[in-house]
């Protein structure tokens, strides 16, 4: 029932809502940031309602519901509105808290913009849905494959390294062995189960990803374990100074 625009605004709203809470918790209830985020959440929600109510402002659609059923053109599935919302939300959180998140959010927005643009173009390119899809893929695959791959690597690396940092020293060793063994044994298991549906693999990977993400977030929140700083030993510092001032 929700329209494209509606999806976008609800997405923003949800994210801002969570962001407001996360920010409040993280900043020990520093009220201003949470208030801004909360307002954004509410505002976006309202806009979403309006959007749904007006059918994205598409006069024709509201005027004549029957007309909407004429498949003038078939859309490719669109993930972009929620993703855009995600990006916007991320940048908002970033604005309020952490600079890196702002850039990440902007990056997502830029990506969505590009994807949406190309998709929009491809949908109108010819009347043939199949062909349109091919066109889109030809254009976007060289971009998507590496970017998705790189993001995938970054995701694993960032999350897992946070986990390792949060664990005590011995724990990190065990965690690394553990993860490797889990990966290996799951792979073995699946490879010996020729009947396993593709959904199993999908489930495993998605679950793993979620677990990793959760772990990463917990790790981040928990903070790094206390690491003893090997301050420059007195002696070597002395040597260094001597070296520097030595004419």
């Amino acid at each position: 029932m929700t329209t494209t625009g509606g999806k976008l605004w609800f997405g923003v709203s949800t994210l801002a809502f969570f962001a407001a809470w996360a920010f409040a918790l993280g900043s020990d209830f520093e009220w201003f940031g949470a208030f801004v985020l909360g307002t954004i959440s509410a505002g976006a929600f309202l806009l979403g309602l309006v959007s749904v109510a007006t059918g994205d402002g598409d006069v024709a659609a509201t005027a004549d519901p029957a007309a909407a059923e004429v498949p003038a053109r078939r859309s490719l599935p669109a993930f972009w509105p929620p993703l855009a919302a995600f990006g916007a939300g991320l940048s908002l959180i970033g604005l309020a808290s952490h600079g890196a998140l702002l850039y990440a959010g902007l990056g997502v927005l830029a990506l969505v913009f590009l994807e949406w643009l190309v998709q929009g173009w491809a949908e109108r390119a010819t009347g043939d849905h199949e062909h349109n899809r091919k066109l889109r893929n030809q254009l976007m695959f060289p971009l998507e494959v590496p970017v998705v791959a790189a993001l995938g690597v970054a995701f694993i690396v960032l999350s897992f390294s946070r986990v390792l940092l949060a664990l005590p020293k011995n724990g990190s060793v065990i965690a690394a062995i553990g993860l490797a063994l889990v990966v290996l044994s799951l792979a073995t298991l699946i490879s010996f189960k020729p009947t396993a549906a593709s959904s199993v693999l999908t489930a495993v990977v998605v679950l793993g990803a979620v677990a990793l993400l959760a772990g990463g977030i917990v790790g981040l929140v928990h903070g790094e374990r206390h690491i003893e700083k090997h301050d420059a030993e007195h002696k070597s510092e002395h040597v260094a100074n001597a070296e520097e001032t030595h004419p």
Partner: protein
Amino acid sequence: MALTEERPLLELTAGDDEVRQPLGSFRRPTSTTGWRSWITTVDHKRIGILYGATALTFFAIGGLEALLIRAQLAQPNGQVLSPERYNQAFTMHGTTMVFLVIMPMLAAFANYLIPLQIGARDVAFPRLNALSFWIFLFGGLFLYSGAVLDQIADNGWFNYAPNSGVLYSPGHGIDFWTLGLQIAGIASLLGAVNLIVTCINMRAPGMTLMRMPIFTWMALVAQFLLLFAIPVITVALFLLMFDRLFGGNFFVVQKGADPLMWQHLFWIFGHPEVYILVLPAFGIVSEVIPVFARKPLFGYPFMVFSGIAIGFMGWGVWAHHMFASGAGPVTVAAFSLSTMFIAVPTGVKIFNWIGTLWGGKLQFTTAMCFAIALVSQFTIGGLSGVTHSISPSDWQQTDTYYIVAHFHYVLFGGSVFGIFAGFYFWWPKVFGRCLDEKIGKIHFFTWLIGFNLTFGPMHVLGLQGQPRRTATYADGMGWNLMNLLSSIGAFTIGVGFLIFIFNVVKSRNNVVTDPDPWDARTLEWATSSPPPAHNFDISPTVSSLDEWWHRKYELGDDHKLHRREHPESFTAATPPENIHLPSPSYWPLIIAAGLPFIGWGLIYSYWLAGFGGLLTFVGIYGLVLEPSVDPDAGHHGHADTHDTHEPEPAAVVAGAAEAEEDADQ
């Protein structure tokens, strides 16, 4: 995302799918004429020409820098350049001449000739070849782009630490130099991989290694040297870059670093590099002399093996550039000896060329003149090289004009003369036009005289104690006359170059009809001039060294050579139908265009670097995913393609791997 549309992202069903439509291929460029065809070409011959034209342009630039140097030094206390400008002039002169002139020029010859000489349709990876060229071009442009912002390197072409560090060279000139050479290095490395595979794998049936034309051989040895030398300088440049841009400590003496580390890394690359600069030129000359002596190359196997020996020995002599740097006597002695003995395989070459001349019927075309001049002039440079290898005498000579004399005799008298022999020799093949012989002779003699006048006196200057890289010298040192002579000589060379340019312009009218005007010996002369895109209408089979010559002549009953009426050629009466050439592509250009942005970005703003990285990264995937032959393009009207024209990701993924690496650096 999009990946899931075709199929679920994680798929388990066994076996292949029929969906074999290539991923991510754009509408391919199709023009075969006009500027667009040049920037998208993947034809080794066109790429060769692009390399050559670029290198020639850089030669004019590097030469003009040399003329500035000579103008400044014509008299004591010269006022033409400020010391700052002078230092920039010789730095850019040396860098340009080595990295942007001789290397790409020899790449031009190798690209153009190797596939023709071994009877192949193209190099092993035509699109990678285009990529190499564009990366080289953008590397060169990047190197010079600093000049626009007045950020020009000024620490000499070997850029010794620690003067190259931020502490002593705070501007960005050295950054441009470091990054520019890294970019150009990628090009050389990709080119080396490509040509090595070409020589090893793409030879026509019957073309055994010991039937390979000598130019191809020497170029192959040079590619191996490149393959192993480029990573070494990459390490050096890489570390310097980290020092300068990210606060590394590799060459920071205050942090305990050893400044000689740079020298070792640079010269481990640097000495093999000088043989990279000269071996292909040796190869050219070894092709030219037999043709105009009308007899086969004297001692082909010795020529091949001496080339290989030079290549090997070249790795064990680098410290002769560091005799005065403070190594212990044992090291110095060892490198003295190893350096001396490199004269042995080089001598073999010289004497074998003389052996080829001996008893021949010499025809003094301009190409031949340049070739013979190489034999005689290179020897002078080689002999002064041997006097440096006597390390005690090098303690007097190093960093003086005697060294400058040495390396110009080997580089100009060797590489440049060889290259111009090649120009005059292959010009009709490449362009279907002849360079005028009379003007060529004038060019030759102007250069021969100008060259000796420029660099001969430098021997004297060096022995009389004039250090190199000095922006001025005082009056009363006894150096005035020789410097003046040298400067006059330099401008004579300049005039000679203009004569050559004139000749090139004029050659438009000298159409040659004979595809084999010199009665030459190797396969490239067996096809039309200029050769068709597919090189040979009929793929050659080879049964001897100098295959083409053997097809033209047979030993008669009278023990005399007779020309066959109709030598078996490789040109068909009707154009062949079923030849599929790789289609042109935009991607190489795009990949290469990203690299300078990465460079500028590292210096000025990471955003730019990100943009450049994206361009390169995406370009690499575009190149990998696009099929080498465009399925939509019509080829020579042939219908039933049994070739499936699959993309061949592996190789380019491999290329991508290392292009990325360098990009990530």
